[in-house]
């Protein structure tokens, strides 16, 4: 059994090979190895440097709009109350209120500040739902850097609004036709670009996935979500949350919320994956539920793969969860038993999408709707009045058309 102290140490820093337990590492072409070392060195050099932190904190406050509120969802809470009026108290960490509408901007902003200090003039990124692409295009516009976004053709179709936003801010959106034209294929194409242009280009990877040091860097740049949640919990009820709930595709919003509480043994950490049409069908993205250990996009983690070791295309109604891999730290937390991972279907997510809209006047991203949907399963299991914080990781404007197509055939 791993002690809390072990967990604390292990999650503070991956080991020298960039591993969380056996997960992580750097499985990339040799061409990229020096760039990964350079990035790691820059990260360690600047992350605690006063001028870097001052610039980052100012921008997080005045440009992004942080801190994001911790909102008590009164009608959602009432919805899950027992007949006697008791029940879980549900709070939403409002990352959807950030500039550009999702948590993704925290990491994109911090990484672009790093890129600038590293002297890189060109930035690339991959995107699924487009939120990371929009965040990257935004910060590149803000700092006058060239920006190329790789996006699967299928995702470009279902996220046309975000494609337009990226182009409006001056980014070049590069369609990726390979595979099923989704996030996996866009990520592979972004890595190929980086292999080719590594000397002039910074790759703003958008999740806690990819080769070391990305899972560590992206986590640390999103850790602000959990840090704020702790302070806001203290202020609102003088304690810690009892349960943290977040959706997991690659897993960046979940790790951002969890990181601050990983060593707080009283806090349950729950990640919700996309079960698509069901985990017993071939159309899902439930990597931690159904995957086997493998290597994709530079890291060892759980992975959806067939009996020949070929990566299987994932499926979810949510473009941001449509990924066959998952961040290595999530695999580690799962194997340790520190975090729990469940999955909900497209149908359950669509129901939650409408439920939150109607009960709270908040239209969540389809990704976020997966976390909301798990309340249906979780709340009836709970005793007393535990405080649940759900990471409301993004807003649903981008998904309205997708949902309309399903609801209004």
């Amino acid at each position: 059994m791993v002690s809390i102290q072990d967990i604390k140490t292990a999650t503070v820093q991956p080991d020298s090979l960039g591993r969380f337990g056996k997960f992580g590492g750097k499985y990339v072409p040799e061409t990229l190895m020096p760039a990964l070392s350079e990035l790691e060195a820059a990260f360690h050099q600047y992350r605690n440097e006063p001028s870097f932190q001052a610039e980052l904190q100012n921008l997080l406050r005045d440009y992004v709009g942080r801190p994001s509120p911790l909102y008590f969802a009164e009608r959602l809470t009432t919805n899950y109350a027992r007949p006697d009026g008791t029940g879980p108290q549900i709070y939403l960490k409002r990352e959807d209120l950030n500039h550009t509408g999702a948590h993704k901007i925290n990491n994109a902003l911090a990484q672009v500040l790093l890129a600038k200090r590293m002297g890189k003039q060109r930035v690339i990124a991959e995107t699924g739902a487009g939120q990371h692409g929009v965040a990257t295009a935004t910060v590149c516009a803000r700092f006058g850097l060239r920006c190329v976004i790789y996006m699967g053709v299928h995702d470009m179709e279902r996220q046309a609004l975000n494609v337009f936003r990226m182009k409006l801010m001056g980014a070049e959106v590069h369609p990726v036709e390979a595979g099923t034209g989704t996030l996996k294929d866009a990520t592979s194409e972004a890595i190929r670009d980086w292999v080719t242009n590594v000397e002039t280009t910074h790759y703003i990877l958008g999740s806690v996935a990819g080769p070391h040091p990305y899972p560590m860097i992206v986590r640390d740049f999103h850790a602000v979500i959990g840090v704020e949640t702790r302070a806001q919990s203290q202020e609102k009820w003088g304690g810690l949350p009892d349960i943290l709930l977040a959706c997991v595709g690659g897993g960046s919003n979940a790790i951002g919320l969890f990181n601050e509480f990983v060593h707080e043994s009283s806090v349950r950490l729950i990640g919700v994956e996309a079960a698509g049409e069901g985990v017993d069908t071939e159309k899902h993205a439930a990597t931690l539920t159904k995957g086997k250990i493998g290597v994709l996009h530079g890291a060892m983690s759980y992975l959806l793969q067939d009996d020949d070791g070929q990566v299987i295309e994932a499926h979810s109604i949510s473009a941001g969860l449509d990924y066959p891999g998952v961040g290595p730290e999530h695999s580690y937390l799962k194997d340790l038993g520190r975090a729990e991972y469940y999955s909900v279907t497209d149908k359950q997510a669509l129901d939650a999408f409408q439920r939150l809209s109607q009960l709270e006047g908040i239209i969540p991203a389809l990704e976020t709707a997966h976390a909301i949907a798990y309340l249906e399963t979780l709340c009836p299991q709970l005793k007393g009045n535990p405080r649940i914080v759900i990471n409301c990781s993004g807003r649903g404007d981008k998904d309205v058309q997708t949902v309309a197509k399903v609801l209004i055939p």
Partner: protein
Amino acid sequence: MTSISAHFQTLRDRQQCALIPFITAGDPNLKTTAEALRILDRNGADFIELGIPYSDPLADGPVIQAAATRALQKGTKLEQVLEMLEAVIPTMKAPIILFTYYNPILHRGIKTFLLKIAAAGVRGLVVPDLPLEEAEELIQTAASFGIEVILLVAPTSSKDRILAIARQSQGFIYLVSVTGVTGIRAQIQDRVKDLITDLRSVTDKPIGVGFGISAPEQAHQVMEWGADAVIVGSAFVKRLAEGSPTERLQAVEKFCQELKAAITPVSLQQVGSAK
């Protein structure tokens, strides 16, 4: 069949730069792959690199990526490729080097994978997404199966890394000639010459140069710069992807002969024609 190292030694004694064609297994089908291997072997290939089709070939450009996708759509599986090799390898002189990404190895387990490929007669392994830091277990285990793991050096590699990679690489050192993925390039950069010189100053192991070489003149240039082997991939894969079945194999045969002639010293060519 001799090891890659031993075969290189023979070529060195004859002052012959080696030709290493690359093709993707299962594109357009495994029967054609088998025939292409025999043709390459008869027409000047000293080693042959055989790509195992993979769903996410990060280090490959559009030509080889598309070939892998086609091969996978045809249902090509590693076990079928090895079955084919088991039949073909005994009829060939050129040792076979498998080019595979790491996940298919990890998926089967390193030992099981090595056992299978060794049984099929494979002699070497190139794993483009397994840098030195992650390669130790594979290298050590492979040695006990008589498989040599060839490591890659890139134009971005530091002097320290070049030295460490050169120490660990077996069979030869695979020098990636471009900062980029596999594919046809109009020109081979002059810096390849310096990279060969840098590598030569730290190792006496053979140096094979690949990525981007697609024409006899380029192969000749790389040989002149002192490479022990020239690796040509996308240009072969492209020829196997176009035309009727007969035309494809004829194109491969002719191209292989042209490349071999371009890297063969005149004295050896005369010996060849006198036979």
